[in-house]
């Protein structure tokens, strides 16, 4: 039996993704132009080994990647990337949800509170931070509608994945 922490909500199960857990769904997302375009990520035909390497590298950089799975069917629905700044007790999160099949806000309204409550209790964290590129409209809307504070707009923060120009990033914060 795995010792990995597990967070259960009514419909979902959250657990860190280990290299042997890399799913076909995750592989498919990296090649989905609509999803990657929204997130300002390059569309790539990655292999399972590529994602396994990414997980190992993330772990080395103390970034945890937590999968969102359906509780009933175990289907991989999305993921959180979390990075803790212990000195200031902050956690920065990035989010990917398979929007081709699931409504982002519908999933996150249930999983966000569960994950943040876990992180606050387990690591003594006091604030969550999310930096969202301007093209990722569904996530921006979700944060605006669920009580996150829009703390500012970082002008031209990221180069556009298209290779032309730069994009703004909206920074949100939520105190626990």
């Amino acid at each position: 039996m795995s010792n990995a922490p597990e967070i259960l909500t009514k419909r979902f199960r959250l657990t860190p993704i280990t290299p042997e857990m890399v799913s076909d769904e995750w592989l498919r997302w990296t090649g989905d132009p609509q999803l990657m375009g929204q997130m300002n990520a390059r569309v790539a035909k990655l292999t399972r080994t590529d994602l396994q390497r990414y997980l190992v590298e993330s772990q080395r950089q103390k970034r945890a990647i937590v999968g969102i799975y359906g509780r009933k069917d175990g289907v991989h629905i999305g993921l959180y990337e979390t990075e803790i700044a212990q000195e200031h007790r902050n956690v920065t999160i990035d989010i990917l949800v398979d929007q081709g099949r699931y409504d982002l806000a519908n999933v996150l309204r249930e999983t966000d509170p569960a994950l943040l409550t876990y992180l606050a209790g387990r690591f003594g964290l006091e604030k969550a931070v999310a930096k969202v590129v301007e093209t990722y409209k569904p996530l921006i809307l979700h944060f605006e509608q669920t009580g996150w504070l829009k703390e500012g707009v970082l002008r031209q923060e990221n180069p556009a994945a298209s290779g032309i120009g730069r994009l703004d990033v909206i920074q949100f914060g939520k105190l626990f």
Partner: protein
Amino acid sequence: MATLPPPSLTLETKNFLIRPISGADLGERLSGWADDELAAEMLNTKRRQWAVREQTAFFAKFENQPGKLALAILPRGEPHPIGFYTLHLQPRIGVFTISHLIGDANWRGKDLTTETSDAIYGYLFDKLGYAKAKANVRPQNRPMLWLMLSDKIWRKEARLVRHLRDAATGERKDMLVLGMMADDWRTARAPRPAA
């Protein structure tokens, strides 16, 4: 894509030398650098004498860390630093975050920030291809805000509410994020055409 500077990065201006801070720079001479409120906050400590072991711990965070540099500022011909810059470079997105402390009180108010920071901006923007500089400033640091915002090249981009945790008291404080685009910096420094 922007690139990382060499760990041995050294820049020279008319009056100053900027080079990596070393263990030999640390010691009693720097112990008074945390003895005012703003400097102490920048170092995330309370106002007090800055013990050598605390100096060592602070600068250790920049040793052998790709993308992190602590650079001493020395007046030309002088052996000891009077302050330092820290840089956190993100070459993948072409952004760096800069922080600055003039530790030696005798050198404050002497406009060395413009001279030394321009050397850093010029190098990172024009030689290494960075597109944006950022700075994290406490809202109560009015002198720094006045200095940075007065020429309208730097702009206030975000106020991060209760973002920083004081190591000594646990109190949380706000932080402002300022941003400056490389093109704006270049435009401001370009010679103006004669009327």
